[in-house]
């Protein structure tokens, strides 16, 4: 079956194997099957006659070599004859490499730590690193406040532009649509009680207190939290952060603080836009499909919603901004070695900041209820 690769001549003292054809990478499966059929009888040695070989590469030569190794382990001697020099050098490579390996193997390689122990170790080192980073950032905030540098101001303004101004369209569109959805859903339910006009209350209160700021924050976490982590991560990989350190610049002050400050300024502003857009979305449904006039709508909003509701929503924005920016920059700064890690940390930044926003929002809800606001 493998006659294009091997044929046999059996002599009393030795089995002669005629090797021919193409012994190359693409044929490795067939070659392995062929060499496995080299089964000398007891007392026979094996002679590989390689004059008929047309082509060989390292993979092919390895299969041949591997079979002689297996045979020698069974105590069967084998030899090669008739090799062309141009072909033999491939086999020679393998013999050389195998010699290095045999020389190396007894020393053994140190066992790598097991997965579990490594995971435990990671938890410890990660949490200490996290606390350390947090402390370093807090300290640079203090330093930044004491001696604000012009560089930081410029960088902060840039961040306000990237994270705030550029996010306005998408935040406005999203909250406008959510305003429409809320009003639409509420209209169906409240209409059953004949309390259609309360739709206005529901939309304006829910948007100003909760939805506006939450949607803006989640949007920003997706947009800017990931951008922070990715940007800082690449800077770490490019040794830009190290370059800053050796120039005597504090990367926390240069990179982290402006991002945190920028977002703390930008998110409240975005929240205002979000609130207006959300209520506008509600107005579209109320005026368009529910027979409430524009004037009635405005009156009803003014009657049901006061500035406290608006401030309740707005007061959460800086806190959410702080969470997003801290998590994003921290994760970015944790990137050390690989592109894989960069992706991982960016994902972590987004998931964790959204998670923390929602947890913080729940805490706020409890707090404001207790305070009676």
């Amino acid at each position, binding site marked *: 079956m493998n006659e294009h690769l091997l044929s046999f001549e059996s002599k009393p003292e030795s089995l002669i194997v005629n090797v021919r054809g193409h012994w*190359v*990478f*693409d044929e*490795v*499966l067939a070659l*392995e099957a062929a060499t496995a059929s080299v089964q000398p009888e007891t007392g026979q040695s094996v002679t590989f006659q390689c004059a008929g070989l047309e082509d060989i*590469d*390292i*993979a092919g030569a*390895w299969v041949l070599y*591997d079979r002689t190794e297996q045979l020698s382990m069974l105590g069967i001697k084998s030899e090669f004859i008739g090799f062309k020099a*141009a072909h033999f*050098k*491939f086999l*020679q*490579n*393998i013999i050389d*490499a*195998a010699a*290095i*390996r045999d020389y*190396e*193997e007894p020393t053994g*390689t140190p066992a*790598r730590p097991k997965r579990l122990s490594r995971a435990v170790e990671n938890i410890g080192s990660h949490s200490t690193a996290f606390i350390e980073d947090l402390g370093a950032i807090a300290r640079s905030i203090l330093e930044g406040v004491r001696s604000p540098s012009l560089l930081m101001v410029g960088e902060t303004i840039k961040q306000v532009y990237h994270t705030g101004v550029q996010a306005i369209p998408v935040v406005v569109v999203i909250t406008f649509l959510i305003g429409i959805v809320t009003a639409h859903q509420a209209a169906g339910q409240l209409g059953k009680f004949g309390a259609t006009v309360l739709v206005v209350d529901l939309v304006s209160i829910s948007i100003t207190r909760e939805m506006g700021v939450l949607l803006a924050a989640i949007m920003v976490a997706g947009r800017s939290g990931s951008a922070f982590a990715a940007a800082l991560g690449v800077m770490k990989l490019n040794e830009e952060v190290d370059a800053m350190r050796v120039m005597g610049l504090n990367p926390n002050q240069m990179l982290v603080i402006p991002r945190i400050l920028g977002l703390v300024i930008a998110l409240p502003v975005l929240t205002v836009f979000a609130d207006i857009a959300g209520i506008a979305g509600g107005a579209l449904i109320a005026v368009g499909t529910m027979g409430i006039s524009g004037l009635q709508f405005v009156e009803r909003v003014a009657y049901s919603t006061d500035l406290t509701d608006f401030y309740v929503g707005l007061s959460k924005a800086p806190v959410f901004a702080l969470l997003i920016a801290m998590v994003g920059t921290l994760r970015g700064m944790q990137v*050390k*070695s*690989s*592109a*894989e*890690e960069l992706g991982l940390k960016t994902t972590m930044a987004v998931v964790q900041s959204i998670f923390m926003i929602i947890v913080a929002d729940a805490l706020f809800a409890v707090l404001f209820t207790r305070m009676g606001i």
Partner: protein
Amino acid sequence: METIISVRNLVNRFGSQVVHDGLCLDVGRDEILGLVGGSGSGKSVLMRSILGLQRPTSGTITVLGQQIKYHKPGPSRCWGVLFQSGALLSGLTVQENVELPIALYSDMPLETRHELASLKLLMTGLSLSVADKYPSELSGGMRKRVSLARALALEPKILFLDEPTAGLDPIAATEFDQLITYLHDNLDLTILMITHDVDSLFGICDRIAVLVDGGVVVGTMDEVLASDHPWIRSYFGVPRAQRARQAAGRRMYE
């Protein structure tokens, strides 16, 4: 001499900047061709064009009789590339990096794949103790060797090397040159090598291609040295090139 790579009337233009202007270059079987040129002369652009990573403005490139098209699978079974910084996949271990091309192009059992990959690592002078490490845990020189092992994984006919000795200390660079010569002699490789290392140029290259004025001056070392192009004269006229030339001469007499 059988032509392995043939570049015909290659033009590469970026805006108003002309990098290649009707460049023609042939690479013959089993030779080591060194590619040199000043910064911005288009060494990398030429290599990327040959590899199909860059769309040339015009011109045809043929490798092993197959015409290269931009971002189309070329004869990737038949060539291996050593990128300047190694370009190892950072999420995979050394062993997995070398096994990856083998797994892509064959249905060998795991064990065979593993053995072949180990063999390639040994052939590039690496100890198998690095096999389970990640690229980020290796030194620059080791990363290059792993990358070379990966380039050799599919038994290529052609090897592209982008500044193989850049960033290596003189000892490591000399060893790497020796490794390239060894692999060239033992694996019947055709090698196209971008290099600025004058020791490599004098020591291991069969022919030199110098990119100047959008074209190429190509020939053996002596032929290129005889050229009176001002850039070539100044390139090989600097003291370090002179010293490398003398050193290469001495080695020859020895």
